[in-house]
């Protein structure tokens, strides 16, 4: 697929886009600087986000010491533990300490005395696997549906796909998840209802991934199908596409060589936005399917007022989302001729 999405500059079949073809290529240095700037902006955004999360956990009633205490623990014991956890220091100091550890991969220590990096090292790859598969499924299915709908604008398929997509995108993940469990696990017994793990901490079989991936991707497929369809419709109004249609090229050829390349930036942006939604939805979906991911760690950490763990989860997911957004920016830049 990627091969067909090459820059319009090399394949504009008519002279109509010649002006763009002649745009001068920017020097490499400038490009790197801009990329650096973009990275810095994203990093700053992440830092602000982390500070907000730290502050938000702080605002919840209670703190890690009493949230993880046992009934009957004395006030002295509590105070002692509070001191041990460093909770007696101002929140700003704790946040700064935590942030300065970040560059060397030190995510701090949880309220239960474990290294946060260790705590996240097992579930996070599982969540990435789930989110990654859901992202790929979303991309593949929404491209296919969007294109199918675009082949005959206003046709039966187009109307059916658009209506379904609108309906589906409004469904919360948990509704989809519960329905999937009911139909495919409890009624038909085709797929496992929950994910159980092996001795190595990963899902025991690939079938266990099917329902969680579907539950996550179905709402996003709805959303992205509409984006793909709309981007293709916009692109269809472009002069070179009209020319191609008048020239009598086959529909699929027009779609692949003339419509999709121009629509790529929009589609990339849509998919990138979905990454955040997918990782957010994973928290809910993981609970329903008992998936051994980061969602359960996050939920538990919020209950425990465990700021380093909450911030750690936000940091790693934030880094992934930032990475995907950056990638989408690059795809857009590449597709539209080198601008960042």
């Amino acid at each position, binding site marked *: 697929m990627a091969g067909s999405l090459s820059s319009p500059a090399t394949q504009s079949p008519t002279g109509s886009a010649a002006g763009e073809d002649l745009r001068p290529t920017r020097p490499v240095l400038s490009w790197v600087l801009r990329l650096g700037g973009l990275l810095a902006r994203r990093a700053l955004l992440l830092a602000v986000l982390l500070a907000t999360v730290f502050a938000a956990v702080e605002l919840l009633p209670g703190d890690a010491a009493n949230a993880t205490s046992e009934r009957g623990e004395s006030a002295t014991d509590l105070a002692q*533990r509070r001191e041990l956890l460093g909770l007696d220091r101002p929140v700003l100091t704790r946040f700064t300490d935590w942030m300065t550890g970040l560059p060397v991969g030190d995510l701090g220590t949880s309220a239960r005395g474990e290294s946060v990096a260790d705590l996240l090292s097992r579930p996070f790859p599982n969540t990435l696997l789930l989110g990654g598969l859901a992202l790929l499924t979303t991309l593949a299915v929404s491209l296919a549906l969007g294109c199918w709908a675009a082949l005959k604008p206003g046709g039966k398929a187009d109307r059916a796909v658009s209506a379904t997509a609108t309906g589906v995108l409004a469904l919360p993940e948990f509704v989809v998840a519960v329905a999937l469990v009911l139909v495919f696990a409890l009624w038909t*017994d085709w797929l496992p209802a*929950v994910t159980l793990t092996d001795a190595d901490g990963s899902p025991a079989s690939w079938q266990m991934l099917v329902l969680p991936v579907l539950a996550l991707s179905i709402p996003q497929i709805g959303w992205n199908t509409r984006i793909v369809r709309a981007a293709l419709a916009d692109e269809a109004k472009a002069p070179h596409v009209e020319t191609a249609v008048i020239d009598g090229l086959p529909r699929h050829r027009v779609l692949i060589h003339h419509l999709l390349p121009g629509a790529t930036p929009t589609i990339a942006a849509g998919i990138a936005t979905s990454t955040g939604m997918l990782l957010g939805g994973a928290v809910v979906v993981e609970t*329903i399917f*008992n998936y051994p991911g980061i969602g359960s760690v996050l939920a538990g950490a919020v209950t425990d007022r465990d700021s380093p763990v909450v911030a750690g989860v936000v940091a790693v997911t934030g880094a992934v989302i930032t990475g995907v957004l950056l990638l989408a920016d690059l795809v857009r830049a590449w597709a539209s001729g080198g601008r960042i």
Partner: protein
Amino acid sequence: MDFNRRQVLWAGGAIGAAALLAACSGDGDTSAKANAAGTKPKKGGTLRVGALGRASAITRDPHGTQANESDYLIISLVHDTLTTPGAKTNTAPRLASGWQASDDLKTWRFTIAKGAKFHDGAPVTAEDVVWSLRRLRGTPSGASRLPGIKAENIKADGPATVVLVSDYANAELPLLTRLTTFVLKKDTKDKEIEKAPGTGPFKLEWFRSGNARLVRNEDWHGGEVLLDAIEVKIFESPQAMANALLAGQIDVASNVGAVAARTAARRKDIQIVRRPNDMAMPIVMRTASGPFADPKVREALRLAVDREAMVKQVLSGYGTVGNDILGTGDPAYAKDIPQRVRDLAKAKSLLKEAGFDTSKTYKLLTTEDISGLAESATLFATQVREAGVKIEVVKQESATFWDKTWLKGDLYTTYWGTNDSVVFLASKTMVSDSGQNEAGWKNTAFDAAYRKTIGTKDAAARAKVLRGLQQIEHDASGYLLWGVADGIDLAATAVRGLPTLPGYGRVQLERAWLAR
């Protein structure tokens, strides 16, 4: 050892798919009658058990805070406690085969069971037990786990005897050694805890993120273990756990709650294991001060509540009516004290006598920590309105509740899981100087009865005093105990020999076997 509130955080209601499924599935038959008489226990098989827990709260330390059911289950199967909850007496032998008290009931001698060995073959010595108990005593909640027993008063006497000296006479001291007195080898380093050999019925094969596989300990001192292995699967939500059981991915859903039971009641291939007297959710009325300080007002509220309706609606019928005495599962529980029943007329006249201000609205504080707790408060408020008492239910976030309301509020809900001992709950929550005197209750007659109970060696004489203690509690304490919830496990039909004891009895899976 004392009941940990977080241990039941996850015992809540299964909703969603499970409930939907209930609405859509087969006939209305109750649970399958799996435990057919005359079936001979069979050796072999792997039991897959689902247990609630949170990934963030996993602990491997037998003396740490076990907030997760899954952790507690795994630790209990690998390591033995000195004693264990029992059916006929509330304390039964485990690693300690017997115990004996001095005449003043302060010095207790525990004998280690013959043939008790660690998984690596080393015999269990008194030194190991002493080291373990002292380690337990040294944890942050050690003082409440072994109250009245200082670390230096735990000593070995010979290779097989452990001596515990209490600061005061305590006839029920062995009760304290039932729950988290897990025994490890002496001088086990903190780093080695996760792999440390236990003495329990199962050996740890692997552990990963709350999931574990345990294999039979052929050499267990407590008798033959039938299962080849137990696989423990951690679940974050009761709903997912119920789904896993319904889909046949696990064999037992441990402590899954009433909502899941209601669902499973319609399934012939699922058995519901009820463990009576598992959880009390009393309403606490402050006796020390405030609007409920007058005993007549408290009596009126006790008469205004419709206990049957509470059990039926709040617990879905999976429970029994309470009589305002905590410790309903105790073999010495006073069943002969007449059951208090609803009497609105008497309640009204008592309120009038006490000059209770019925024009005011009183706040009842509660949390959603466990399933049914907030619902119990709401239903209670509706019921007492018929006696003229206006109550507004205020739900508090868990941390706030335990910080601001617990032990301090005028009217609030609480919950306790150690329902197998009247004395234990009296010592924790009702004796004047108890650390968790939830109602601020001070009653000299009660204190005297308590002291006499724990100081009386003769069982018959003690039972008599204990009866008196319960009468005072029934008449005057700050508790309104409307009912007690069953603990509920769900299991596939092939599973036999599951524990039916309340509270911590639920983790004793060494007698379980599979009929398939």
